[in-house]
């Protein structure tokens, strides 16, 4: 028994959160087992941008109370190389239906652009590729200036979604930002603009300071560290980052429930899912699929 999501036939209800799983690297780490035991019903790519990005300077991780703060900064090889090198290798993924045969795990490509124009180009490029089953617009990444404002304003978001909507017949998923005043209004904007689904939550804007013992001292050469914050320095190379993991689960649940109540289109729920029970809660609260990232 497969499940249907925006016209895709999926083996089950659990997918990965964008940027939290790398198929190529996992093949190097786990060999054939990765493909034989591929756990996700669909594979969501990390965020792809028009130009290549190396990502933020390290450190990129900080462990907080039951959470992880990351400032990865969307490293990716850019649209062209992604299409040429990565997409073919992501096309053949399959996932086992519980206890039964395996079915394709469709590829969902997550894209981000600093402008509606850039997003249109990204979406058009995805539209051309048969291997790509659906497109996720990242209008929510707190680590990069551009995406944020678009995603937090319902009207602007609607306009952006409308601009890209006309360029593809593939399912268009809008990944909302949690760093906004009214996420349900943003979801409604995405729906009005023509989105087929919304996904949430992305990470909450957060910060960590470098341990005090390092304070005051000039950074040793070669040592990278965030900018001055008051009397201290930020730990993360990018100074701020995004919080994920169990710490945000109750925030995710509130946002997913609010969005599922507001919009008709299906919702992909994520944020702090560690157990089947957590996934069940998001589904019960109205999500059609659940994604897992920080585990």
């Amino acid at each position, binding site marked *: 028994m497969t499940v249907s999501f925006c016209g895709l036939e999926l083996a089950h209800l659990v997918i990965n959160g964008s*940027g*939290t*799983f*790398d198929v*190529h*690297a*996992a093949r*190097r*780490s*786990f*060999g*054939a*087992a*990765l493909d034989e*035991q591929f756990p996700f019903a669909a594979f969501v790519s*990390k965020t792809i941008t028009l130009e290549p990005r*190396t*990502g933020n*300077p*390290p*450190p*990129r*991780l*900080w*462990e*907080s*109370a*039951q*959470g*992880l703060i*990351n400032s*990865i900064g969307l*490293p990716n090889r850019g649209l062209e190389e992604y299409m040429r090198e990565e997409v073919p290798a992501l096309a053949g993924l399959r996932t086992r239906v519980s206890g039964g045969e395996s079915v394709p795990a469709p590829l969902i490509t997550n894209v981000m652009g600093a402008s509606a124009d850039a997003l249109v180009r990204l979406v058009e490029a995805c539209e051309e590729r048969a291997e790509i089953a659906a497109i996720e617009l990242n209008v929510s990444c707190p680590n990069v200036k551009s995406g944020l404002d678009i995603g937090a304003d319902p009207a602007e978001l609607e306009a952006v979604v409308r601009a890209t909507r006309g360029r593809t017949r593939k399912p268009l998923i809008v990944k909302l930002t949690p760093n906004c005043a009214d996420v349900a209004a943003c979801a409604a904007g995405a729906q009005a603009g023509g989105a087929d689904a919304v996904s949430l939550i992305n990470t909450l804007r957060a910060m960590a300071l*470098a*341990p005090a*013992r*390092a304070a005051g*001292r000039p950074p*040793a050469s*070669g*040592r*990278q*560290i965030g900018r001055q914050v008051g009397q201290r320095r930020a*730990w993360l*190379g990018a100074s701020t980052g995004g919080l994920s*993991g*169990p710490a945000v689960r109750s925030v995710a649940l509130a946002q997913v429930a609010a969005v599922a109540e507001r919009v008709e289109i299906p919702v992909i729920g994520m944020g702090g899912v560690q157990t089947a029970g957590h996934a069940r809660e998001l589904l019960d609260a109205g999500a059609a699929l659940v994604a897992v990232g*920080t585990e």
Partner: protein
Amino acid sequence: MSHAPFARRPLSITASERYGPYVVLRAADPEGPAPAPGQFTMLAAAERWGGGEDGRPFLARAFSVARHRAGEVHYVLEDVGPGTGRLCELAPGERMWALGPLGRGFAQPTDGRRALLVGGGIGIAPLVILADTLADAGPRAGRGTPPSAAILGFRDGERARAASLIDGAQVATDDGSAGHHGPCTDLLEDELELDANAVVYACGPAPMLEAVRAICERARVPAQLALEAGMACGFGACFGCVVPRRGGGYLRVCVDGPVVGGEELERVAEPAGEP
């Protein structure tokens, strides 16, 4: 390199032994693939991982496999924070979760070069299994392969007790309380002066690794450096564990390393935030 099973598995602790401040933790791992020297495992205590000050640890932690023998895997741990602290308390019969072996290990010596193992502090861990492997390979490697040497540096004599994990290792201590009084790189320079037809395998704190890298670069000796970085996933998923790559961009320590060739780095950067 060995591939890891694609799921974490529970390991049962079989022994816990102290070497000065270090703990050698052994666990039964009958199904675990044989790791290559330099590979690591993500470990987390099965019970009460978390609940320390600041609600940590939460993520699993990376540890070099220090030995793999008779269905048992050994790790050498130094208690530096909530994660290592919790693992150091594990008693026989208790369990921990393991994902691994992961990452790129040491490349075997080639061209008849002898292996020089250089370890600093807890950095001896991956050198123990490397020394085991070299010793096992020794007879088979035949007459052409000169014997390897191990040089281990510690802060003091108490810590230097862990040197006994590698047979015949030379020891240096910062305070002179055991072996050579000074950095272990002094001994490395002596060895290279004696015979530069060598490959250097090093693991230790960043300043030591950087010194080793620079020495090897000057001496045109290949260096295999086992790096450390804060990690979240351990298998290339999160892009969190990066260090700058020579020529631009970043390496992921967990999949492009932890062992990298000296030539892949401009320099070994100190982990951020360290004093």
